[in-house]
């Protein structure tokens, strides 16, 4: 079965600084998708970025980028120029035959 691990339960970063959230996963599948979701206190799950496993190029979305290393099964999220509104829970998720969420990382952006 697939598993997703986020080894950092909590992180903090100063406003305008850069922070990297880690995610590793385990699967025997070759074709899959990886996601990072942001969950603010409203409990909604907001898609931050997605990566197709067959694409070698790392996905980027404005201040958000990923470091996808397929061989190492690693999918870290880098947030540049952190803003107070980035404070939230961040979930890494794997989508292959099953959809699996990681346990989440609570990110606090400090003024």
């Amino acid at each position: 079965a697939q598993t997703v691990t986020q080894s950092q339960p909590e992180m903090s970063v100063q406003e305008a600084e850069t922070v990297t959230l880690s995610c590793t996963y385990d699967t025997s599948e070759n074709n899959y998708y990886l996601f990072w979701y942001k969950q603010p206190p409203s409990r909604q799950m907001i898609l931050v970025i997605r990566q197709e496993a067959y694409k070698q190029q790392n996905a980027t979305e404005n201040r958000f980028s990923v470091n996808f290393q397929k061989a190492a099964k690693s999918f870290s999220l880098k947030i540049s120029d952190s803003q107070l509104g980035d404070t939230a829970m961040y979930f890494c998720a794997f989508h292959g035959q099953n959809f699996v969420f990681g346990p989440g990382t609570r990110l606090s952006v400090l003024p």
Partner: protein
Amino acid sequence: AAGVIQSPRHLIKEKRETATLKCYPIPRHDTVYWYQQGPGQDPQFLISFYEKMQSDKGSIPDRFSAQQFSDYHSELNMSSLELGDSALYFCASSRGGVDFSYNSPLHFGNGTRLTVT
């Protein structure tokens, strides 16, 4: 370690039928959340419970109802099913309520895939 258990894993229903999805949280977790994820869509928050009381309500249709029982398991009841209800339904659990500041990590179940024909 025990995880969040959802049953059934797959469910096929016809339009206008009813469906009941069950969620068994991790032991000692007192907070349960329900999400609906349609094909190609982000998970949508439906509803949450803390200590058997509804704590937050999201985009849950009036045709759906949910409750949390004394053993903290939760059930999502769906009536008058529509084709658009076909989705993956996730349950997640945590401990300590829905206050963002104090919430323990959220643990997701594997989901129930509902297909309405």
